[in-house]
C-alpha cells in the first residue's frame, strides 16, 4: 500500500507517495532522477549509494522510504551546491583521488559526514570514516590525503 511520506530533500520539503518498503536509492534514482547516488551492490557493502540522513551517513540501498517521515536527506545533488563541496572537490582533484569515479559521490558524502563530526581528523580517523565506502581503483591513499587536505584548506567551513 503506497503511503505519503514527507521529508526534506536537499533543503527542500518534499512529499512522495510510495511503497513504504521502497528503497531510498530507487526513489532517488528512478522516481526523482537524482542519479548521482550510485548502486554498486544493493546490499549495504559498498557505500556507492551513500547519502546523509539526519546528519548520519547512510547507505540508501538499505533505507526504506517509509522510515523517512520528517527526516532530512542530503544527496550529492544538494551537496554539490555548497562551498564545502568546492573545498572537497579541489582537494580530491589535487590529490588524484578520482579514477573511475563510481565510488566518488559516495566518498564525497562520506567525507562530508566525517568532517561535520570531526573537522580536523587525522589519517586514522579518515580511514575509519571512509571504511564503509569501497573503492577498487585508488587503493584509498590519495582519497585519505584529499580529505586531510580539505580539512586543512577548508578549516572553519565544517
Amino acid at each position, binding site marked *: 500500500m503506497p503511503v505519503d511520506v514527507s521529508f526534506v530533500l536537499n533543503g527542500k520539503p518534499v512529499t512522495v507517495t510510495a511503497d513504504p518498503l521502497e528503497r531510498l536509492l530507487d526513489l532517488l534514482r528512478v522516481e526523482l532522477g537524482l542519479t548521482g547516488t550510485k548502486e*554498486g551492490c544493493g546490499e549495504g557493502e559498498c557505500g556507492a549509494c551513500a547519502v546523509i540522513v539526519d546528519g548520519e551517513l547512510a547507505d540508501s540501498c538499505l533505507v526504506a522510504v517509509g522510515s523517512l517521515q520528517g527526516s532530512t536527506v542530503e544527496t*550529492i545533488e544538494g551537496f554539490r551546491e555548497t562551498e564545502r563541496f568546492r573545498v572537497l572537490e579541489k582537494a580530491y582533484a589535487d590529490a588524484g583521488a578520482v579514477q573511475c*569515479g563510481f565510488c566518488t*559521490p559516495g566518498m564525497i558524502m562520506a567525507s562530508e559526514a566525517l568532517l561535520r563530526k570531526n573537522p580536523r581528523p587525522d589519517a586514522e580517523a579518515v*580511514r575509519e570514516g571512509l571504511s564503509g565506502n569501497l573503492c577498487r581503483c585508488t*587503493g584509498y591513499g590519495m582519497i585519505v590525503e584529499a580529505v586531510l587536505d580539505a580539512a586543512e584548506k577548508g578549516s572553519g567551513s565544517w
Partner: protein
Amino acid sequence: MKPDAVILAAGLSSRAGANKLLFPLGGRTVIEASIEPFLSTCGRIIVVGGARFEELKSALARLSPGVEVVLNDDYLYGMFSSVKAGIRRVGSDRFFIHPGDCPLVPASVPERLLSVRADIVLPVSGGRTGHPVLIDSRLIPEILATDAGSNLRAFIASHGFETVEVDSPGILLDIDTRGDLEKAERNLSREQGRTVADALARSVPKVDNPEKLSGRAGYIADMPFPGMLHAKTVRSTRPRARILSIRLPEMPGGYFTVDRNDIPGRNRVHVILDDQPVFAEETVNYIGEPIMLVVGPSKAKVLELASAVRIEYGDLAAVFTVEEAEASGAPIVGGENNRFAEYRYGRGEATRVIGEAASGVSGSRVFADEISTGYQEHVYLEPQGLVGLYDRERDRIEIHGSMQCPYYIRNALAIAFGWEPGRFRVVQTCTGGGFGGKEEYPSLLACQAAAAAYKTGKPVALILDRAEDIECTTKRHPARIGFRTAVDPEGRVTAMEVEVRLDAGASLGLSGVVLQRTMFTAPGVYRVPNLAVHGVALATNSVPAGAFRGFGAPQATMAIEIHMDHIASSLGMSPLEFRKRNMARKGDLTSTGGTYAFDVPLEALAERVIASSGYRAKRVEYASACLARGTTAACNGLAPLRGIGMSFFLHGCGFTGSGERDHIKAKVRLARREDGTVDILAANTDMGQGLLTTFRKIVASALGLPLERVSFEKPDTDRVPDSGPTVASRSIMIDGKLLEDAAIELKSRWDEPGEIVVERNYRHPDRIRWDDSSFIGDAYPTHSWGVNIVEVAVDPVSFEITVTGVWAAYDVGHAVDERIMRGQVEGGILQGLGYATIEVMEKSGGRLKQRTMTDYVIPTSLDAPPIESSFIDNPYPDGPMGAKGAGELPLVGAAPALASAVENALQARVSRIPLTPEYLMKAVRHAG
C-alpha cells in the same frame, strides 16, 4: 672552522600518509635534498631522527660518512626536543638548524648567511623568513635551558635576529603533503633549467574530475532512453545438464522472452574461437550460464516473471576441478580431452640438466615446488551493463554501455547477427572500472541486449546486479604451477622445468592467450639457460575465467617468486643475494629467447626500496624474533609476528609477439578543426585509468598546445577508427605513440588552411622478431620492471595478516603523468594484496561459494597500508614521451612480496594464495 648543521628529521609524517622525508624528489629523497646544500659548507651534519628511525638511517647510509644520524627518544614531545637533542652534539662555533623536509634551498643560502656576523641570522625571501637559521653556539646553554613547552621560533623572536635577503622561494617551502611535493618538484625542475611546460607536464588535473565529483558523469544505469525496457537473465542452476523443457509463466502484454532462437546469425560470442553460446542451446555447462532474457517495461514485473520460469534439467556427469578434467575417462566438457589449449616452449636441455643435477654428480641440486593461486573477482564498482537499441529506419543496432573494447563488441555483434559490421554502432559510456572484466564479457551481454532490442524494437537495458555479476562473469584463472629447478654450487639456476595448469571454466574464451602469458612469465626476471615450459588450460563446468589485470602474469609471478625464496632458504642464501645472482641483465635472453634490448634496472630499483624499507636488518630481526618464540608462537597474548619480503618482477608490455601486427592493426586519427582545436579519434576507453587525460596530454605536448585545445571523447565506433582494445597495458604505449606521431605530422602541416586529418597505422618495429608456432623470439616489444617490499604483522593466534608497509619502485619508461601513475600503482598494489589475502573465492560442485560482496570481500580503507612508491625515469624510445606499459605491472608484484613477508614472519613455507588463516595455521603446524 666550518659550522655544523642540525637537520630535524624526527617528526611523524602522518599528514602526507607515508614517510615524506623519503619521498623521491629529483632523483633522490626529500631528506637527502634537504641536506645537500650543507654538504660543502658544513663540517658535521647531525640528523636528528625519531619516528621511523631505522628507515631514515638506512636511507641516509649512502651519504655517510659525514652525516651522523642520532636518535631523539623524546621526539613525540615535539620539534623543540629534537632541536635540543641535535645542538647538544654541536662542536663548532656557529651552527645551522634546518628541517629535513625543506628540500629546495640552494647551496648559496647557507653561504650568504655565514657572511653575516650576528647571534642569529635568518634568510628572507619575498618578505618572509625561511630556512635555515644560523645560530651562534654561545646561545646553546640558553636554548637548552628554555622550557620544553616553548619552541625555537619563540626563542629566536625573543632573542632578536638579523636577516639576509636571498630571493629563493625554496627557503619557504616544506613538504607536508603530496601537493607540496609536486610543487617542490615543479620548482626543482624550474631550477634545473627545464621549461615550465615540461615541468607542468608531470601531473595535470584529470579532465573528468568535475563530472565525476559532482555526480553528473553518465554511467549506463543513469541514462534514460525513451521507452526503455528492462531485461533480466534466466540462468542455469546446474553445472552440466540437458535442458529438457522450459515452462514460461503467463506473459502479460508488452513482456517478452529472448533466447537463442532470437539470434539472427550465429548463436556464438566471438572472442577467439566463437565457442561460447550467446544463449544456452541443448545443454548448459556451468551454473549461471544464460538461457534467456525476460524483457518488459516494469523492472519489478520482469524480475517476478524471470523467477517464475521453470526449467527441467537432465543432469549430466560434470567436471569440477583440473584434476578431474585431466583424469582418464573424464566426461569431455570442451576442447580436446578437456584441454582447451596446450603449449610448450623452451630451449637447451632442461630435462637432461635437471636429471644430472638430481643424481648429484655436479654438486648441483634440484628444487621442486607446486604453487597454486585462487580465483580473483574484479569487483569494478560499477556492475556490468549495456543498453541495446534498434533503429528501425536505418536498420541499425546501437549498443551503449560500460566496456573496455567497443570494436570487440562490434565484431561480436556482426557474427551473432550475420550483418555487416557497419550496421552496428557501439558507444562507450562512463565506465566504473574494468580491470579486464569488461574486456570480453560485454560482447556476450551486447549480443543479448541487441537481440532483445531487435525483437522488441525498443531500447533494452541489460544491467547486472552485483550478485549476478560476481557469480556469472569472468574472473582470474585459478592456477597450479609446478617447478623443478636445478641450481649449481655457486647458486646459479642452470635449468628449470615448469608445468602450468589453468582452470579455464566452461569455454575457451581468452584462456589460450592468458595461458601464454602465464607461461612466458613463469621464469620471472631470471636467467635460465635450459628451460622447458609446458602449459594447459583445462575445461571444467565452472564459470568461464577470463581477462583480469595482469592476464596470467600474477599467477606466474607469485609462483616463481616464492619458488625463488624457497630455493634461497634451502641453500642458506638470502633471497636478495640469490635473486641478484640470477636476475637477467640487458642483452640477456628473455624466457622465449628474445633479447632484453633495453636496460634491466632491477638493481637500481631494489636499492631504492631496500634502503627506504630497512629490508636487510628487518628480515634478519623478524626471522630470529619468530624463531626465538619457538613452539610457543601460538600462545595467547603474544604480540604479532612481523615479517618483510620482496619480489622482483616484470611485465611484458602490450600484446604477445606479432599480435599488434597481425591481428590488431591499430589505427588512430587526429583532426585539426577550423577553430584550431584538435580532436583525438581513437577507440581506447577510459575506465578510470585516466586515458581521457593522458591521451590529450600526449597530443598537447607534441603539438605544444594547452590541454584545453585538445579534445578526446569517449569512443563511438561511428566516429573513431579501430585502434584496438584497451587491454594488455597497450593503449599508451601503442596508440599513444601513434597519436604522438600523428601530432608531430600535424604540427608540421599546421599552416595548411581548413580542417586537417592525420591518420596513423601501426607499424611493427623491425627489431621485434617472433615465431608464433614455436614461441621463440621477442614475446613483447619491451618490459616494464618493478621491485616490491611488503611488511606484515601476523597475529599468532588468529593468523590474520595486517600489511604494515609497502615500498615499491618501478620502471615504466617515462610516466606520462605522475599523479595518474601513482593512482595506478596504489590501486594495483592493493588489488594484489587482496588477491594474496582476503579475496577468497572457492567452488564446490561447480558452484561458487562466495556470491555476494558480503562473502567476497575486497580491501577497505582500513586494510590499505601506507605505500611508498617511486619511479626511475627510463624513457622508452618506441613509446610516447618515453612511456611503456604501466597499468598491470603494479598488481603483479604485490602478492609474492606479501607471501614472502608472511614466510619471514612465521618461518614457515607457503605454497598457495590466498593466505587464509586456516591455511597459515596448517603451514605453521607443518613447519613446526
